């Protein structure tokens, strides 16, 4: 698998279909690796312990200045690429994906190809069972217990914004927490600011999150951010049939609407 990945990456550079390859290095922690010479492709590595979603780099100015770019993309990262394209954040033809799934190299895809691959082979990607069970367990608790659970978790947040940096969907040049006229979200790493921040981060990803898990993996304090993401993912699917990351021309769930949307909770 690694051999095919490396060969393909080198070929993209040789054929000038990509000027920059972003992949993973082999050394401990599997940091992101940036390659522009075909011979360096030997250093590429992939296995399931590579936790970063490399699509997050696509909005970095230093990276987009070096397009066309190819990224080593897990299935979730492929979906991110499709979401970014749908949101006009990845110029078509400028980004390629070296698609990987667990221990298989799936080939090189442009965005349309990635979407087609996902639709045909992986049509119902969603949260893992264990994650949904965590959501289920939490939902069964009383509101007071749920509040207590999150009070304890959010209290750990230092507001380092590693979650935001890790997320391909968090590409705003000025995040809501950095807007100060008015200051909607308190920037102090204290109770209510931490609550607002974490709620708004999750909410801004609703219907867009591809469940890659990079935010939770990046959190130095180990906050269970994916519980929020998974709950919203299921709700968006059940209510609006949303499957973000399958259609490069799809409309975002929030930002579109249907007259048929359920509103039984409205009075």
């Amino acid at each position, binding site marked *: 698998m690694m051999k095919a990945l490396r060969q393909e990456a080198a070929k993209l550079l040789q054929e000038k279909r990509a000027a920059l390859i972003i992949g993973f290095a082999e050394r401990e922690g599997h940091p992101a690796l940036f390659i522009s010479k075909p011979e360096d492709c030997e250093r590429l590595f992939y296995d399931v312990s590579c936790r970063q979603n490399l699509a997050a780099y696509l909005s970095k100015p230093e990276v987009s200045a070096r397009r066309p770019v190819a990224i080593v993309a897990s299935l979730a990262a492929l979906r991110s690429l499709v979401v970014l394209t749908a949101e006009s954040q990845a110029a078509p033809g400028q980004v390629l994906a070296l698609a990987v799934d667990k221990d298989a190299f799936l080939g090189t895809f442009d965005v349309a190809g990635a979407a087609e691959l996902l639709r045909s082979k992986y049509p119902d990607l969603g949260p893992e069972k264990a994650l949904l069970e965590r959501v289920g367990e939490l939902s069964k608790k009383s509101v007071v217990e749920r*509040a207590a659970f999150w009070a304890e978790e959010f209290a750990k947040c230092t507001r380092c914004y590693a979650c935001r940096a890790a997320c391909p969907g968090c590409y705003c040049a000025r995040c809501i927490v950095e807007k100060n006229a008015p200051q909607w979200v308190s920037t102090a790493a204290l109770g209510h600011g931490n609550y607002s921040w974490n709620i708004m981060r999750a909410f801004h990803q609703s219907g867009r999150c591809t469940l890659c898990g990079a935010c939770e993996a990046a959190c130095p304090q180990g906050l269970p951010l994916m519980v929020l993401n998974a709950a*919203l993912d299921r709700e968006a699917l059940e209510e609006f049939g949303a499957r973000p990351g399958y259609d490069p021309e799809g409309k975002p769930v929030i930002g579109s*609407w249907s*007259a048929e949307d359920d509103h039984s909770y409205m009075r």
Partner: protein
Amino acid sequence: MKTEKADVPTPTTFEPRITAFVCNWCTYAGADLAGTSRLQYAPNLRIIKLPCTGRIDPLFVLKAFENGADAVLVSGCHPGDCHYTSGNYHARRRWTLFRKLLALTGIGDDRLFFSWVSAAEGQKFADLVNDVTAKVRKAGPFQAAHPGRKA
């Protein structure tokens, strides 16, 4: 018309503080009608008028809870009646997801209410306020220990 006024308030009676975000064209006009019609309803609501429910950012709701609201009501035009054509449809999607998020983090549907009230529905508005106030009264004060509340 339901009123809670029959209860004699005692010093220990909990009076909920409810923040209402309403649209200018329907619900605010509905509230106005309730007033000009001299309908009696619970005085626990603080109304904040916005152009459209589509303008109501979920942040407003968090801010209200942060600053001590016991409940939040969001109300606007009925589907199809939006002054700006589709603001309330956009809002509806947002609320469907947002209420789920708040429920999961400890703000349940006894503190967060949504409704459609038109300019002609003064009575509905009064009934709604009374009903919401009764529910919040039953739910009690928003817990001081909730992480979303200012310490």
